[in-house]
């Protein structure tokens, strides 16, 4: 996977919101690559900047601007594109399935019209061809073809989410960004839809950037997982390491692992992480996690840690990096 060109490459991306009385930086110098055909999970809590990062990658920011860095998709700088070029590129190469399925669909258009709308804005095809393709798409997400004639309000939450996913893969993009695609659905429906996503992804060979706050869910779904805290990526690791008690992790990741009650674990006490993330208007000079961290040392307050290969993962933590270095006598 390493030799491949990334399908999505974020380099040194910082994003600032301009809507308030003073600009607020919510994404800070993020480097992140998504490779073809992989599922990369992006985990973060509310306010961590994970959704903002998704909108940045689609060049869909509102009241916000990218203050540094570049976004390349399939090798092309999407912030250098002209408007019409970007419109053609978006959805054909990269698409997005949004968090709230009801709001992502137009309430006064049938499902069929919305899928046709997407197809026709990028391809020249007859109505018959379009309908045929729309029916294929619905079959992929296991919806009855007569769903085409129905309006969003006639569908259940799970069915709507399937329509949103069908639209996101309508033009066979190379990358689909999914922002909490199953949040708010019942666990059984959630699991069914996730199984379908994985199955379609295996057949159609696109990459997924899967954004979620649900640690358990992402760690079983994704091959690689990036953990975001206070606008920064603090760790990038293989999904399997999150179930491996011997693996090295960022203290925040360790905190998240311990914070959730588990079905498989009888005796373990779930332990919350004390404190709150820093105020982005009063961002600390050193590590953003220092105030909540049990391993904190003086260096953590003085300079921000960088993402470095530590053990088998990329980890941005002075203390974990030092321990690893000592262990190998470097």
């Amino acid at each position, binding site marked *: 996977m390493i030799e491949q060109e990334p399908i999505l490459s974020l380099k040194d991306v910082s994003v600032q919101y301009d809507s308030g009385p003073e600009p607020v930086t919510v994404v800070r110098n993020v480097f992140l690559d998504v490779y073809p055909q992989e599922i990369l999970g992006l985990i973060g809590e509310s306010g961590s900047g994970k959704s903002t990062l998704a909108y940045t990658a689609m060049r869909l920011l509102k009241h916000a601007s990218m203050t540094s860095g570049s976004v390349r998709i399939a090798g092309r700088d999407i912030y250098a594109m002209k408007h019409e070029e970007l419109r053609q590129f978006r959805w054909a190469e990269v698409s997005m399935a949004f968090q709230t399925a009801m709001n992502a669909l137009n309430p006064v258009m049938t499902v069929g019209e919305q899928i046709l709308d997407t197809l026709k804005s990028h391809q020249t095809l007859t109505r018959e061809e379009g309908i045929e393709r729309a029916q294929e798409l619905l079959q992929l997400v296991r919806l009855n073809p007569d769903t085409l004639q129905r309006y969003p309000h006639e569908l259940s939450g799970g069915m709507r989410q399937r329509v949103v996913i069908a639209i996101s893969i309508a033009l066979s993009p190379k990358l689909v960004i999914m922002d909490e695609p199953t949040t708010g659905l019942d*666990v059984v*429906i959630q*699991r069914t839809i996730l199984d379908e996503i994985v199955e379609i992804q295996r057949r159609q060979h696109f990459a997924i950037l899967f954004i979620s706050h649900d640690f358990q869910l992402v760690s079983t779904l994704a091959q690689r997982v990036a953990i975001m805290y206070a606008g920064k990526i603090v760790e990038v690791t293989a999904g399997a390491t999150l179930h491996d008690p011997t693996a090295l992790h960022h203290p925040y990741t360790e905190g998240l692992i311990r914070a959730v*009650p588990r*079905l498989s674990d009888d005796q373990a006490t779930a332990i919350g992480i004390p404190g709150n993330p820093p105020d982005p208007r009063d961002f600390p000079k050193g590590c953003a996690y220092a105030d909540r961290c049990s391993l904190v040392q003086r260096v953590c307050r003085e300079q921000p840690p960088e993402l470095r290969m530590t053990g088998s993962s990329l980890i941005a933590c002075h203390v974990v990096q030092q321990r690893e270095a000592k262990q190998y006598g470097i």
Partner: protein
Amino acid sequence: MASSKITDVLLRVSDLEVRFPAPSRFSKARWIVPVNHVALDLRRRETIALVGESGSGKTTTGKALVRLLKPWGGQILYNGSDVARWSGRKLHQYHKSAQLIFQDPYGSLNPVHTVSQHLSLPLQLHQSQEPGTLSEKIESLLSRVGLVPVQEIRDKYPHELSGGQRQRVAIARALAVNPEFMVADEPISMLDVSIRADILHLLQNLQNDFGLSMVYITHDLASAYYIADRILVMYGGIIVESGDSGEIVKKPAHPYTQLLLAATPGSPVEGPLPETSTGAPNLLLDRQGCVFYDRCPHAMARCQVSQPQLKSIAARHDAACYLYDDRPSEALGH
């Protein structure tokens, strides 16, 4: 259930039924039945979890227990009196014993009231015999729920607090009337992952310290297993299985519980989900047969005809399923 001594039981619910009017175009039946002949015991100092998906009737059951809504039928025996039909002054008294904590800490607090204003009204209503001024009581409540520094927090408005802090205010407000039991409806599902455990522990500690009973309502089997002594699984308004938490998670008996467990993230169950369709349960009054019939991989002819009753299938383990009718124990591998 029947084995418990009546003196331990704080709340004994039998045959509880809640009906809502049904939109007429769906059926000739005029009612839907979101809570259908529910029976449960809540013992003193016990935590039970009502687990189910949306539409299972878990929240409606919770609201009926604290009498935020009036049940259509059935009994809610509280200290020996049936509170199901109470109203007026008596109901007001009951509300002091039974408190509800809501899911959404952003919606359940008044945005123009400070933290201390949220607590002073219930404290005044309660008129406790304990010594101390109102202000001292507010401060002691706030420190009990971990809202420190108290002097700073008490004058803040909800928008100045984080989600976890707001939920602590909601918990303090419920405690202010010195209740005997609390119904906590998805108290952590809108909070960030890193603070959920702290709120669960706070509920556990308060329960120990105040000798409270608790009904914990959730869609998440893992947190129910973590906090509750017993789990009651609801589907389509019916309790389909109940038992000690470990028993439910380790030896789920009802096909719906098995499905729910398999679908929960981090569950040890692998492979395709054990269900035959993904439909929602039928809640109409004129429904026939088992509520899970359409989705059940083990459906039999008799399941289409009548709803199985909740029956003991092992020690302290009940299920409402015909699979266990004739062979109470071997089916579970006991």
